[in-house]
């Protein structure tokens, strides 16, 4: 189960050390991403998330928008 989150809460949690992850393809991340966000594209998530993210810490994922 996961929850939706809004911008102000993202700012607060990231400042507190949450892991912020953009899941869009490489080109979109390279073009522009939220400062400090790491990059794991959706298609690589299964292979990389267990290795690269800390299960004990909060994770926030995002893509472009809700459209």
């Amino acid at each position, binding site marked *: *189960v*996961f*929850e*939706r*989150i*809004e*911008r102000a*809460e*993202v*700012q607060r*949690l990231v400042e507190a050390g*949450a892991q912020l*992850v*953009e*899941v*869009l393809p490489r080109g979109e*991340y*390279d*073009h*522009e*991403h*939220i*400062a*400090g*966000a790491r990059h794991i594209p*959706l298609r690589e*998530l*299964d292979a990389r*998330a*267990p290795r690269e*993210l800390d*299960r004990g*810490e*909060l*994770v*926030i*994922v*995002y*893509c*472009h*928008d*809700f459209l």
Partner: protein
Amino acid sequence: MSPRAALRLTHFGFTQVYDYVPGKSDWMAAGLPREGRSAQIPNAGDLARADVATCRYRSSATEALESMHANGVNFCVAVDRDSVVVGMVYRDEAQNADGRTVEEVMRRGPTTIRASEPLEPLTARMTRADVDAILVTTPEGRLLGLLDRHHAEAHIHPG
């Protein structure tokens, strides 16, 4: 895409997973820090001046005049307690306000843009509309600053 990613993470045993659904378009629109190639190119939020004269829309028109005087300008932006833009007040109208409030003399609903607006098409639209300056706000309407078209054009075409 991000809901699928969040769901996958819960399957891998991550217990504290959040999906920032509005995503980076929302973040950039609010003028928050960004990285990447496009971050090297200024947008509307980068060039907007934050030191804009403001007044509370429930305050007196006299206070609006004081704000204009303090900032050396002929207008001020009427905002609510959360800095959400609700109108514009101009010196001529505030001077003849006769004890009225900002709300009674302001022009409601000024045009605003988001911080992520690219400068070149924006300044072209402003030129066509003969607009010299425009307010930049967050998606919720909170004031970020005022973008001057000539200042923006100088950045696009230096020298």
